[in-house]
């Protein structure tokens, strides 16, 4: 009797082990299945069947600063023209230009001008890049809302970012150390800020960001730190500035007026840290690409303000 119960117990334990193993296996299977289902969920494409052969695709790649703007344009344009499909990807100005030179994209977005060596590389590939200024962007200098400093000159900002000024007291603030925040060094915004603010636009200057500058991997990294830290100073595209950061008024030099960045002050040229945003095509555009660029330069400009950028003057 005792012997048989022993066997039964043994058997049930064995069965339980097998069941647990089967359950684990099922669980893993379900997990794999759900990951797979999630990963191949089709991307929503407004108003088009993928089998439609008449659809023309425009590849658009480049600047991370411009990616939201380019997406908004692409979505609005595809609503109006279901026969065109526009795919937008980021990756940085340099990446977009390189792809345009290699002929893998139709339009490259760039938050800086093409460098002479990039143009040379394109020419060597038999491509003449054509430049379009599609919008303008102000770069705002931001601090913590509790920081009493209201305004700075370009010279002061340059001294702060090169590490010459290290305390807020020296520019009329509290006795606090200054914590410098910047975007990563491949960002077009970084290059623009270095050339036009840190080096004050002087081509022969070899000033660099102080080694103490914190390089943040994203715009969110900058805004997160500026929100929390009363010592911090940062810069970013006006479109990325949230209301819980304080924007500094900037003057070209000590005798100029201090100006806050806005659509009006960028357009009348009084705000000193503003830059054009570019799109580049390989050769003169024609067909759908030309129609798209024409639309961006006319009706597309209404989208620009909504995203915090500055539309072109018309």
């Amino acid at each position, binding site marked *: 009797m005792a012997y048989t119960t022993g066997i039964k117990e043994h058997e049930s334990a064995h069965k339980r082990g097998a069941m647990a193993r089967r359950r684990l296996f099922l669980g893993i299977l379900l997990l794999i299945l759900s990951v797979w289902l999630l990963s191949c969920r089709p991307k929503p494409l407004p108003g088009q069947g993928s089998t439609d052969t008449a659809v023309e695709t425009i590849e658009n790649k480049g600047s991370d600063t411009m990616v939201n703007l380019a997406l908004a344009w692409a979505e609005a344009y595809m609503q109006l023209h279901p026969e065109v499909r526009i795919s937008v990807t980021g990756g940085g100005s340099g990446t977009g230009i390189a792809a345009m030179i290699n002929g893998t994209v139709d339009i490259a977005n760039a938050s800086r001008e093409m460098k002479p060596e990039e143009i040379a590389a394109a020419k060597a590939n038999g491509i003449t890049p054509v430049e379009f200024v599609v919008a303008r962007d102000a770069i705002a200098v931001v601090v913590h809302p509790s920081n009493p400093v209201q305004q700075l000159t370009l010279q002061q900002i340059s001294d702060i970012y090169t590490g010459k000024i290290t305390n807020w007291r020296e520019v009329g603030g509290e006795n606090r150390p200054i914590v410098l925040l910047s975007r990563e060094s491949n960002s077009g915004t970084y290059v623009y800020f270095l050339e036009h603010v840190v080096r004050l636009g002087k081509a022969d200057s070899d000033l660099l960001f102080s080694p103490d500058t914190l390089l943040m991997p994203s715009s969110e990294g900058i805004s997160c730190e500026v929100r929390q*830290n009363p010592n911090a100073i940062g810069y970013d595209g006006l479109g990325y500035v949230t209301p819980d950061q304080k924007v500094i008024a900037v003057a070209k030099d000590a005798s100029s007026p201090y100006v806050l960045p806005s659509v009006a002050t960028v357009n009348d040229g009084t705000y000193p840290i503003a830059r054009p945003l570019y799109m580049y095509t390989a050769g003169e555009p024609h067909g759908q690409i030309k129609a798209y660029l024409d639309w961006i330069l006319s009706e597309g400009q209404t989208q620009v303000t909504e995203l915090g950028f500055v539309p072109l003057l018309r």
Partner: protein
Amino acid sequence: MHDTRGRWMEFAIEALIRVLGISTIGIVLLIFAFLLREGLPVFFQVPLTNFLDVRWYPTFGMFGALPLLLGSAFVTFTAIAIALPLGVATAVFVREVAPNWAREILKPLIEVLAGIPSVVLGFFGMTFIAPRVREILGAPTGLTAFTGALVLAYMSLPTIISVAEDALDAVPKSYRDAGLAIGATQWQTIWRVVVPAARSGIVTAVMLGMGRAIGETMAVMMVTGNAARMPLTLDSFFRPVRTMTATIAAEMGEVAKGSVHYRALFAIGILLFVVTFFINLTAARAIFTKRRRGGLR
């Protein structure tokens, strides 16, 4: 009939396992060859003095990798200095002191710790730990080497605890019995007998934790501030620092393929590979020494 089939199956399975095992080594070698192919040319394009400089401004042709190397070392050693006592103490508690029911709860919990994705820890570090480091410790910013070390210490703890616990587990029961029999208290037995006997296993645990810490990227990138400065003074604990892993992750995405900068990032990858290789080698040596002594396993 049945016998030959069985033998054939055996042979096939053995061969399969052998091929899989060898291919793992092969893949590691191929990765290293790839790293060398992509990274080595930079030493012909950029003078070595530039590479050993203290300024890392890759967009302007300054590839001084010293701040990155020291940054990684600084954060890793600080992290291990925090994690070592905590990890060994936890392992001793779990293995030697805790009652059975507590051990049953603690062990799986520690394993769960290892499963937290690093980006989640990084986010936690950025929004919760960093502001407290700034407010409580008075640092100018919370994104510092110390914050990174705290996060890394937390990440390497599960590795250190479970390997150290295994090492303690391997100490023969007779050691403990002998300790207690000569009148030592439980604490004296643990501290003077069991832990020293498990020493080489604990060293392995620390080495593996270190390997985990130095290779960690995401969390470190989010909390250390990524300023390529030399961490040479004492206040460097509370200043930002840039590690090799964060540099590669932050810059590789946008660098043009085949450029000097691209190759410099691969050269840093080689450096990182060599460093982790030597750390793991030291860990392996500790394991083999232990085997040779033959006392424990």
